[in-house]
């Protein structure tokens, strides 16, 4: 009988812990989801274009494919950027 209040307190505590752990870690993301998500997507696009351009420029410099390297890679960069944006916005089933 004397142990019952203790049991109640511990049960209450464990119930509260379970409820608190049930909250997902996306708590932070919920508050900042809009700027975070869209800034990510925007920078992914820009980063894709710039990164592919850089790869194309490197190919040009070291493999002498001027000027086609940069030109092709800029277009590839746009394609890659659009595909990444699509995946991020529409939720991809493949990745």
């Amino acid at each position, binding site marked *: 009988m004397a142990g019952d209040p203790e049991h109640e307190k511990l049960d209450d505590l464990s119930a509260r812990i379970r409820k608190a752990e049930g909250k997902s870690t996306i708590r932070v993301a919920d508050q900042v989801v809009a700027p975070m998500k869209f800034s990510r997507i925007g920078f992914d696009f820009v980063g894709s274009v710039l990164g*592919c351009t850089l790869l194309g420029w490197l190919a040009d410099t070291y493999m002498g494919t001027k000027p086609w390297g940069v030109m092709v890679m800029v277009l590839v960069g746009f394609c890659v950027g659009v595909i*990444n944006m699509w995946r991020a916005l529409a939720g991809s089933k493949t990745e």
Partner: protein
Amino acid sequence: MASLLEEFEIHDLGAPLFSIGGHSIAFTNSALFMFLAIGSSTALMVLAMRPQAVIPGRWQMLAEKMYDFIAEMVESTAGEQSKPFFPFIFTIFTFILFCNLFGMLPRSLAVTSHILINVSIALSLFAIIIITGFIKHGLHFFHLFVPAGAPKFMLPFLVVIEFFSFAVRPFSLSIRLFANMLAGHILLGVFAGMTVTLLAAGWMLKPLGILPLGINIAITGFEFFVAFLQAYIYAILSAVYLRDALEMH
């Protein structure tokens, strides 16, 4: 008046120390702030955890909170097998966070506003991801570039796109942080310059100097938020890319 870009200049503090490949390496202000970031974050974690109390005091709670924050994020994003990578991602997060925060001090250099630092971190992250992917999956790792359920005739085109989509990830990661930090500090500089110009103008324009000052105060607060947010985004995207390499198959 000082130029707007002067705060991003790297200059040597002292004589050159040694030389690599014909370039003489000196201790620069960039190196100083990187050492400050590493030293203060290490000191924070070591000293805060020194009591090792079961009921944590305030400093210990801060250190444990930082640890738990990133540990939960990594585990929920990248799965169980990602636990060995937690120290790496935690280091990335802490380093970027402290570098960003130190950049907010007046007259300091925001280390992460130089693309080289960010690209170095991103490339080392991707080296680790690629090496781990090959160790774990062998040559099967190349199936990362083959999306499931794709029609066979489109495969060459898709593989090329997927490959470049993977290859630009370190660049997008580093450019995001670089652009945010650079733009933020330039914005602060622009409005500060406006304040000084208005205050130095005729008596009618002087009271208007309060406006860019107020905007500057708001932007400073926003920059602190961006410092935390960009470090967090960097860490969470590192975990996502890690998961792609570890669990794609």
